[in-house]
C-alpha cells in the first residue's frame, strides 16, 4: 500500500454548517440560497470536471447538468452526508457517465494559459532546477505533458488522482464520494502514480 504524503486540504470558503443552512433554505424554495451554493462550488467542481474531460466546453455543459440535477434533487437531500460530499458524488458519477458515452475521444484545450502557474514555486523549481533536462519547458508544454500523462490513465484512476493530488481531498472523503473502500483508493493512487512517473520521468529526475 502506498504511503503518500497527504496534500494540504482545500481551503473552504465557508463551513459545512453554512452549507446546511443554505441547503435548508434551498429546500424551502429559496432560489438565492441555491445560487450561493452554485457560486461556492462552481470553481471546485470545474477543476474536477475539467481534469477529467480535458475540454472547457464539455466542462461548462456538464457543470450545467450537474447543478440542474442537484437543484431537482435538493429537496430529497436528507443531510446524511455533507452537501460537499453529495455534490461531488453527483459530479463524479455524471462525469464518468459522460466519459463512457464519449468514449476514449479526448480534446484537450490548450488555448488558455492557466492563471498563476508562472508564480507557483513548484513550476519555478521545475523550470530552474532541471534546466538540463527540460531546457525549453514553458507553461504550454508542461501543461501538455501533464495532460498527456493524465490521459493515459483510466477514468477510475484519473478521478482518484484529480481528487487527491490536484484537489487535495483526503482518502476517506474520496472513498465516500466514489462509494469504494479507502483501500481501493490507495491502491488506485499507487498504480496511477507509478504510471504517471513512467510518463513524466524526465521532468522529475
Amino acid at each position, binding site marked *: 500500500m*502506498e*504511503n*503518500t*504524503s497527504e*496534500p494540504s486540504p482545500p481551503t473552504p470558503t465557508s463551513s459545512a454548517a453554512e452549507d446546511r443552512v443554505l441547503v435548508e433554505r434551498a429546500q424551502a424554495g429559496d432560489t438565492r440560497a441555491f*445560487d450561493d451554493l*452554485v*457560486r461556492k462550488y*462552481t*470553481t471546485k467542481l*470545474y*477543476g474536477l470536471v*475539467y*481534469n477529467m474531460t480535458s475540454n*472547457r466546453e464539455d466542462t*461548462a455543459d456538464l*457543470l*450545467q447538468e450537474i*447543478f*440542474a440535477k442537484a*437543484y431537482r434533487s435538493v*429537496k*430529497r437531500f436528507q443531510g446524511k452526508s455533507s452537501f460537499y460530499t453529495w455534490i461531488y458524488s453527483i459530479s463524479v458519477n455524471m462525469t464518468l457517465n459522460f466519459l463512457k458515452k464519449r468514449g476514449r475521444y479526448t480534446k484537450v484545450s490548450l488555448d*488558455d494559459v*492557466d*492563471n*498563476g*502557474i508562472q508564480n*507557483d514555486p*513548484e*513550476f519555478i523549481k*521545475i523550470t530552474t532546477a532541471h534546466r538540463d533536462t527540460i531546457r525549453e519547458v514553458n507553461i504550454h508544454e*508542461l*501543461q501538455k505533458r*501533464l495532460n498527456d500523462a*493524465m490521459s493515459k490513465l483510466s477514468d477510475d484512476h484519473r478521478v482518484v*488522482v*484529480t481528487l487527491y*493530488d*490536484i*484537489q*487535495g481531498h483526503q482518502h476517506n472523503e474520496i472513498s465516500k464520494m466514489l462509494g469504494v473502500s479507502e483501500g481501493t483508493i490507495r491502491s488506485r493512487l*499507487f498504480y496511477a*502514480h*507509478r504510471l*504517471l*512517473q513512467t510518463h*513524466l520521468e524526465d*521532468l*522529475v529526475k
Partner: protein
Amino acid sequence: MSEFEDIQRLIRLKRYETPSEDFVEDFLAQFHQRQRSELLRHSARGLLWERVATYFDDLVSPKWVMAGVTACMAIVAAWGAMNIVSGGGQQSSVAMIAAEPAPMPAQVALVVDSELIREAEQGRQLEIEGILLSRHFESEGVALPDETTVVSVSGETVPVSAELLPMSFSGFNR
C-alpha cells in the same frame, strides 16, 4: 516521504487549470436561463407528472409505500378468496353450509344399512330358533307343526321349517 512525492507535486500544478474570473457569474446566468427554458419546454403532462412525483416524494416515505402495497395486496387476496368460496352466488357460504345438512354418500349408507340389518336379522333368527327348540324340549306333549312362522326384526313373517332343525331333534319330534 513518498517515493512518488515528486510526481505528486508536478501533478498538483494542474490545480491552476481554473476558469476565468467572470466564469462563475456567467455560468450562473446561463443556469437561470436554462432553468427558465426547461420550464417552458416542459409539456403540461410533464409538469403534471413532475408535480405528482414531487408531491409523493415529499409525502410518502418508502416504508409507507411498502405498507400501502402490502395492504392493497391483502385486500385483493381477501376479495378473491371470498369470490371463490361463494362461487359468485349472493348467499353467504357460511349460511348455506349451516342451512343444508351435509349429505352422506349414497353407497356408503347402503352398505352400512344392509350389513347391519342382515347381521341383526340373522342374530334374531338364531335367537328365535333357540327359544323354539328350548320350548319344544320343555313341553314334549305339544306337537310342533311342520312349519311355523316367526316375526323378524323387520316385521316380516319368516317361515321356519322343521326340516331345518337338526336331524336328531326333528326325528325325535316325529
